[in-house]
């Protein structure tokens, strides 16, 4: 069977290309909202943790955060996804894509938290002192002085975390979500020709990642240029 025939069979017949397109849209949807959730959680945890480390306040929230970080970073994301779907939401009828956003967001939050905490702790203590010496509260000093500086240093790392998350959502098929990976796999199971559908899936991920990486590189260059002012 020639390439043209194989192409027709895998993508054109029965509009099979739609598996890939819809899968891609689902993947992008899950990634986008999981990144948002992850950033939100990550910042919250990072601020709690760095506040505890610097001021010894918020011990109880800090302990909760540490448990969260240890559990999430110490177990595979697929297992977390399965537990959230089959155990936590096992007895209720719930939108699977929502579950995926939740699972990947909670997972990503743990990594974002450590990146952001690193950024906050890397800001010189003198910055916090200068803010406090002027009479600003801890919160005002964090919001206006420390976090903007931390954000600038961790922005590239955060963008990379989003790129990693895009690839990690490929396990969404474990709870029968028709994401990009699952889309390719469905075509394979219908046509019994694995090469084209799976390679196509890989190429789509690769192009997306290369595109996003080039955006991060532009961002890094802009930030570096800013430092020289």
């Amino acid at each position, binding site marked *: 069977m020639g390439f043209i025939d194989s192409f027709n069979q895998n993508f054109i017949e029965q509009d099979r290309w739609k598996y890939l397109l819809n899968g891609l849209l689902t993947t992008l949807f899950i990634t986008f909202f999981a990144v948002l959730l992850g950033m939100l959680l990550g910042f919250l945890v990072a601020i709690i943790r760095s506040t505890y480390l610097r001021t010894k306040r918020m011990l109880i929230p800090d302990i909760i955060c540490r448990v969260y970080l240890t559990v999430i970073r110490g177990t595979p994301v697929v297992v977390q996804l399965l537990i959230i779907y089959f155990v936590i939401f096992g007895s209720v009828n719930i939108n699977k894509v929502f579950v995926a956003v939740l699972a990947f967001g909670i997972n990503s939050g743990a990594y974002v938290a450590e990146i952001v905490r690193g950024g906050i702790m890397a800001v010189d203590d003198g910055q916090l002192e200068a*803010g406090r010496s002027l009479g*600003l*509260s801890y919160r005002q000093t964090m919001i206006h002085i420390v976090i903007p500086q931390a954000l600038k240093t961790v922005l590239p790392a955060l963008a990379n975390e989003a790129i990693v998350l895009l690839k990690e959502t490929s396990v969404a098929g474990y709870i029968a979500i028709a994401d990009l990976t699952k889309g390719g796999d469905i075509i394979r199971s219908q046509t019994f020709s694995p090469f084209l559908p799976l390679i196509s899936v890989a190429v789509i991920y690769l192009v997306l990642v290369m595109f996003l990486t080039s955006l991060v590189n532009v961002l890094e260059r802009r930030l570096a240029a800013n430092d020289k002012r």
Partner: protein
Amino acid sequence: MISVKGLKKSFNELQVLKGIDEEINKGEKIVIIGPSGSGKSTFLRCLNLMETPTEGSIVFDGTEITHLHDREINRIRQRMGMVFQHFNLFPHLTIRKNITLAPVLLKKMSQEQADAKAEELLRRVGLPDKADTYPAMLSGGQKQRIAIARALAMDPEVILFDEPTSALDPEMVGEVLELMKQLADDGMTMVVVTHEMGFAREVASRVLFMAEGTILEQNTPDKFFTSPENRRLKDFLSKVL
């Protein structure tokens, strides 16, 4: 204005301040000298509660401040400026924003009023054309002058200087000391930890000598430098003068 009684401070096992009693009056220019590790900076940092005293009391303008809540401490700090050895300017903000951030956030002034005040302060510290630049573009001496302008923007009643010229290249020390002299002449109450003996002699109304966590001797600069009594002080002066 500031009354310190029995002030002690320990970091874990290490006792840095071993009981300080001191009275600082309005308009005074106190210069604190002493060998490194003597507790000078810690004493200064206790005055605006950047360090929490272990024991003793500090009364500022009639209020005992060592056991205040955070919010009240913030209010006290608005009335006490501080200038740091390493300037600690905010690198992500323009010079104008560095100066206006605190007064605007703390609702002392509107942004317009604060901007006008910043212009005036920049003229006063001799850097009127730097409002829109960033700290990274300034020399060390210029940074410290901006840091002083930033402290002045809050209209403090006293300014604490923590070794303000120690991190500067020698040729930049003069411009900062000159500005501090101007402040002194304008009647600002100042507490200065420094190694600049010339400044102490010329500007101080009182010089304190600290060693091993206590004030060993204090006097007017004249007597302090010409007829020191404490043996440790004589020793110290013979090394630095």
